[in-house]
């Protein structure tokens, strides 16, 4: 059974409850994707995506916010490969972490940033949370313009005792420069490894 609705210019569909699947397909008007009320009964969540921004450049970045946490409690580590150049970069203790770099409006026609993101043990009530993504995006047809990314985003909310006590219940992905993901952009979320009702995520 599928329920459909709209959210910020996106068509939203939710599959049957026993299999967590939520998908947004852009109509071109929305620049933020929000996965909210994420059930906590799975071990892992996983996203697949094909995203492109209407930003008037070859690329755009997508920031990430978890559980509406606006504090500087995110860090990222990135590995990027362009032709023979491989670079690493980090961003420590930021409030606006960049999860993705995607194709922009002047990238080759039909080219989207395509890949996946995983969050193991996202529902655990202990410890930091991580999103780990890998994807390919093309800025141009020339050498050095096909970029392979491998990125980890860490969320370490500050709470009493210094240990986070909540799982990921909400993820917002927002374009930094563009005003909308181009029509046809799609991102799908799955839950994997359903936890037994008798067990508690830890």
């Amino acid at each position, binding site marked *: 059974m599928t329920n459909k609705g709209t959210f910020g210019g996106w068509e939203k569909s939710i599959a049957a409850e026993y299999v967590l*699947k939520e998908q947004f397909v852009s109509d071109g008007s929305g620049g933020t994707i929000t996965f909210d009320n994420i059930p906590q009964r799975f071990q892992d969540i996983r996203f*697949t*995506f*094909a995203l492109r921004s209407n930003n008037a450049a070859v690329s755009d970045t997508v920031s990430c916010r978890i559980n509406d946490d606006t504090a500087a409690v995110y860090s990222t580590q990135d*590995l990027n*490969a*362009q*032709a*023979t*150049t*491989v670079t690493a970069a980090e961003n420590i203790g930021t409030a606006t972490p960049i999860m993705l770099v995607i194709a922009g409006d002047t990238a*080759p026609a*039909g*080219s*989207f940033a*395509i*890949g*996946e993101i995983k969050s193991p043990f996202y529902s655990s009530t202990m410890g930091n949370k991580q999103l780990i993504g*890998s*994807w*390919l995006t*093309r800025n141009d*047809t*020339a*050498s*050095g313009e*096909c*970029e*392979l990314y*491998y990125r980890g985003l860490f969320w370490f909310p500050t709470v009493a005792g210094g240990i986070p006590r909540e799982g990921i219940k909400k993820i917002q992905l927002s374009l930094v420069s563009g005003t909308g993901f181009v*029509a*046809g952009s*799609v991102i*799908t979320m*799955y839950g994997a490894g359903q936890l037994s009702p008798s067990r508690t995520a830890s």
Partner: protein
Amino acid sequence: MVEEIHGLRPDGTWYGIQIPRGYRHLEMSWQIVWSATTQSILLRINGTSFDATPDTGANYTSQRVVASATTITGAESIATTTPALFVTTGTGSDFDFFSQGRVLFPYYENPNIQKVWISDHAIRRTNASAGLDVSKRGIAYLGLSPIFSLGINTFTAGNIDNGSKIIIRAFD
């Protein structure tokens, strides 16, 4: 949907795999060992029938990163006709040193996007330093056509040894 393939035919012709329609994503895992020298395995798409030659146009662009010992390297192939999906071990390798990996084809039937497949891959040639590689690779197909078949081949003819297999899973 799961399909398991044994006994690939590495004789210089294309091994065609008609993949299921009606799913959102396609995933392929492999373990392969090669009897000749270390060998790149090619993957093209959309042969019109079993054993038919897949799209031979210069329609594939790839980028990869490989880590071996303390060295990390990047390489690209722009608009090539011979997209290598992974490298498998060869005669010089110790026995049972399978090359193993996994590749994801997200939204493989979506007609609005150029297709991309992303792979993770490990290869062990020897137990000595620099005998292990891990790599990640992305390949873009420069067309909007849905993927309806995969074609597997090698750069040169030879034999894929016993125990090699490919498993394809379509889901959602």
